[in-house]
Structures are given as C-alpha cells and as structure tokens.
C-alpha cells in the first residue's frame, strides 16, 4: 500500500476542469514531483489533499485513512504538512512562534491546564521547544529565531515556512514551489535540505516545482500535468523528453533538458 493514493480525482471550478481524472501514488520515502505549465492544476492537487477543496469525483487515501471523510483541520493529524506557493506565515509573530504553531497536532494539554500553566503544560512546552529548536538548528534559523516575520526577506520566509511544516514531524511533506523566488545559492540549500528530509528524517516529499534542475536533483518520480490532465510519469529525464510534455511546454520555454531555465 502506498502512503498517498489519489484515484481518479476530478475538480471543477464552474466550467473549468482544474483537475481532470488524475491518479497518482506517493510511496513511503520517495520524493515525488509535480511539474507542468502555469495553471496546470498542481497547487489545486495540493489543496485537494489538504481538504480545502472537495473533489467532484475520486478518492484520496493517506496511510490507510480516507481523507475525504475528514476536514481540513484533521489532515495534519494524520501526518501531512505543507507549505504554500505564496507563503502563508503568521505575520505578526516571531519565527519561533510560527514554528511552535507547527507543533499544534502534537498538543496534549487543553485550555484549562494552559490557563493555569499546570506542570503538565510546562513539561509539554519544554518538549515543543526542544523539537522546534532542532528544526531551527537544521535549517540554520538561529539568527532569525526571535525576529518578527513581517521584517524578514523573502528567502528566509520560505525557509521558515518549511520549518513550520517540519516542526509538525510529518510523514508526508507537501512543498508548493519551494525554490520559486530563491537565489541560486538558496535553491542549492533547499535541494540539500530536501535530500536530508528524505534520507535522514525518512519523510516522504511531494513537491511542485518549475525549476527542473532542482526537480532532477532531488526527485525519484516526476508527473507532468497540463490543463488538469496527466501527461506523463517517470524519471525527470523521461518526463522531459516525453513528446506530450514537450508539446505542452512548446513556446513557453519553461522546460529544458539542461534544467537551468525556469518560468
């Protein structure tokens, strides 16, 4: 059984078929990439997994659970964490506080014990801080630890969002364009982190990315989408040389065999 199984899922926005009968599987321990031109439906697939949207047809199963029977706020509880294409951080909080919210699915104390700061709540806090501190160290965020998100540069925010997702200790990490807007060096760091996340932490990764260099460097299998439909699935090289994929990108100049150009 695969970790994530999406079967024949279709989602329409009015007349537009954003996701058209898509099926895919993410295996435990792999890095699975979704590529495709703008508007292909990649982010929409993430939003379907997050249960922000209800599919018209199809099923989404994760780790033996039927996700469609659960609401958006129950999804993280199964071990799915995500980042957003446009960065959705808690702006008026510090980096530390953002990461701590990532720990929400592990919370064990209720409001009453929080409000009197019971010994149990105190011990729980210590555990959360220890877990978050590991993430801060892993992503080299020590310098920004107590800074407000509002004043941080774009590249750092991307890393903080990755950190917040990691803080929840997920089984599956959904990364929506982790390298968009990053410099060459920052993209390089991101590639190393994704490798470590997969190899050392044993977390499966599903990512949407336009940067084919990054995609070829870190992912095992790649699926190409266009207009909500699957074009091809295989290794990065196979997908890039697939006629249907080349046709979909024709004129957009987004995909290239050297893997350096991007949208």
């Amino acid at each position: 059984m695969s970790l994530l199984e999406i079967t024949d899922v279709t989602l329409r926005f009015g007349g537009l078929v954003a996701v058209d009968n898509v099926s895919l599987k993410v295996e435990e321990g792999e890095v699975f990439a979704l590529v495709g031109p703008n508007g292909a439906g990649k982010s929409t697939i993430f939003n379907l997994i997050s249960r922000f949207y209800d599919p018209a047809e199809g099923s989404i199963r994760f780790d033996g659970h039927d996700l469609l029977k659960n609401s958006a706020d129950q999804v993280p509880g199964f071990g799915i964490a995500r980042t957003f294409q446009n960065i959705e951080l808690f702006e008026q909080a510090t980096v530390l506080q953002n990461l701590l919210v990532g720990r929400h699915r592990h919370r064990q104390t209720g409001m009453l014990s929080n409000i009197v700061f019971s010994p149990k709540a105190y011990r729980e806090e210590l555990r959360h801080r220890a877990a978050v501190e590991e993430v801060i160290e892993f992503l080299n965020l020590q310098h920004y630890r107590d800074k407000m998100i509002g004043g941080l540069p774009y590249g750092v925010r991307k890393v903080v969002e990755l950190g917040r997702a990691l803080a929840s200790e997920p089984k599956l990490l959904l990364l929506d364009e982790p390298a968009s807007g990053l410099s060459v060096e920052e993209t390089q760091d991101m590639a190393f982190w994704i490798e470590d996340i997969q190899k050392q932490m044993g977390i499966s990764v599903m990512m949407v990315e336009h940067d084919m260099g990054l995609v070829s460097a870190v992912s095992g299998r790649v699926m190409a989408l266009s207009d909500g439909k699957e074009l091809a699935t295989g290794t990065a090289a196979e997908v890039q040389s697939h006629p249907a994929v080349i046709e979909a990108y024709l004129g957009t100049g987004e995909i290239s065999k050297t893997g350096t150009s991007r949208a």
Partner: protein
Amino acid sequence: MRFVFKTSYDADISLFKHRAQAVWYGLLLLLVLATPLYFVAIGDAYLLGEITGMLILAIAGMGLMLLTGHTGLPSLGHATFMALGCYLNINLLGAGVPWVIAFPLSGLIAGLLGTMIALPVLRLHGVYLALATLAMSMLTGDFVVIAEPWTGGIAGAAVPDINIFGMEINRYSTPYKFYYLVLFVAIMIVWFYRNLLRTPTGRSFTAIRDSEISARAMGINLTQTKALSFFLSATAAGLAGALFGHSAGYVTNETFDLVMSITLLLMIVIGGLGFIHGAFFGAIVVGIIPVAIANGRTFLATTFDVNINVPGLESALFAFILVCFILFEPMGLYGRWLKIRTYFELFPFYRKDMFKRQKSYLKTDRIQ
C-alpha cells in the same frame, strides 16, 4: 541593548524575558499596591474610585483584547456580556449565593451564554461580525426591559454589597478594600492571559488572527477555537460587568449601552491591539479624558471666565483622538512606548522603518 542568552528553554517560557524586566514589573506591582496609601494620606478617596473604575474597564478591555487583538475577531457588543455578568451577579447574590461563588459563576455563565449567542455569527468575517455584534448591543437595553423580573427594567436594580466571609465591601464606605479586590481580579486575569499566550491555546488564537488558511493547515479547528476565544473573552467581560455593577451601585437598562461597547473597542485600539498592556493604556486614556475635560472646563471658567458648555464634547474629543491614533499610531500607545524604548536601546542605530508592517508578498491567488 540587552542580550538574552539562551541557557535553557525556560528563557522563552518564563513570564519575564530577563531579570531587569521582572524587577520593573515587581516595582509596578509595589506601586499599585501602595497607591491607596497616598489617598489615605490626603484623606480623599474620590480619585481612587476613578482608578478602580479604570481597572474594571481594563478587565473588560482584556476580554475584548483576547477576542479582537489576539484572535482577530472584532466585537461591538461586549457591553452585552458585561450586562449579562452584572445581572447574573445581582440575581445570584439576591438568591443568597455567597459572593465568592456568585461572582466567578456569573462570569462563567456570561461566557457560556455569550458563546451560544456568538456561535451562529462566528462564521462571519470582519465587518459582518462587527455588524452582528453591533445589533446585539443595540438590543441589549430592550432585553433588560423585557427581563424586568430579573433586571428591574427601566426602574433599575440596586446592586448588593460584596460580602467575603463576613467582610463587607462597598465602593463608598470601604473604597480601599474595593480597590484591592478589583486589583486582585485584574492581576489574576493578567496572569491567566499571559499563560494562555505562552501555551498552545493562545498560539492557536493568534494563528487564526494572522492566517486562517495556515491555521487550518496546521490542524487548528477554526470554529472550536474561535468559540473558545469568545467564551474566555465574554467571561472576562462578564466579570468586569459584575464589578462594574458593584462600582455603580445601581444599574438600569441604559447602563450597558452601545456607547459602552464602542468605548471598549476604541479603548483597545488606542491602547494597542494585540498587547495585554494595550487594555490598560486604553483604560487609562478612557478614564482620564472625562476628568481632564472637567478640569479643563473649571480651569477656563475660573481663570479666563470662559464657559464652554458644548454637549457631546467628550465623545467628539474621544473620536478625534481615535482618528489620530488610527492615522498616526496604528500600534497604539503601547506600540509608541515600544518604539521609544527600542530607540534608546539601539541608539544610535535605530532605523525609521523598524516597526513598519511589511506588505505581504503576492497575496493574489489565495485559497478561499
């Protein structure tokens, strides 16, 4: 500038960031504890009554701050929850329930009723929630009239004195005891509030305030969490209402009106949204304005023989101050204080845009 070295996670978790901060708050505590001594010395407790009133406003303000400043849900109806707490307290006391039970109980029931009233409107956003709570506040006076057997209707109801294990407390006959009682309640609520903010419950509130999408993606149930914030908020307002009743001595259908609801909201905006301090700064401003206007009038009349008798001057001045704050000081008085402090701590390295809220990137195709 102080450097906070992390020796253990305790540094983040403890109430005070560093020793100096603990010392400052210790001194502040001593000051508020010693304040009555001054009034004993001058033999006139009138102003102490005003200060007690500010503390009561600050308690209600903390309730609203939790909801609006920390959870991002505006309410123009918090006077309604104060009314609930006040009348529940009167009726429980009237039924012979001892004050030490009646008082917290009236807060809790006000919180529960408040949550039940709020549940249907909690799905509303921003201005719609504000309008729904505004409507609630407008109806409050009418409900007080309808519920005459419990509220005394238009004629009003007298508020019984406080009796704690035989100790009688009345605003006029024992102003010092009343002050300490209100101070105790205020400090307890500050403590609860601080605890919330350093634990998962408070973090889930601020998460919802900053990004509902992200909060859900982190596993936070929006409806439950908002309802919880509303419950705590209405409970604090209910407790403040009960104390307000004791302070006023007599309440009618016009006591907890729309103006009070609006004043509470203005108060926390002026004080500084999103800071516990803001509730206190705001309460001080709201408490001082009428006194300042009265003194100003007397001063003009006695020194220059000028008599200003403009009706509504207070509200106008208040509105003017508010507009100025929104235009020039959106972080409120507490924000101004933070800026001044940072200026001196970092001198000469302060940058003008240090506190500027950054425009968020690319919020164009957000989900929803």
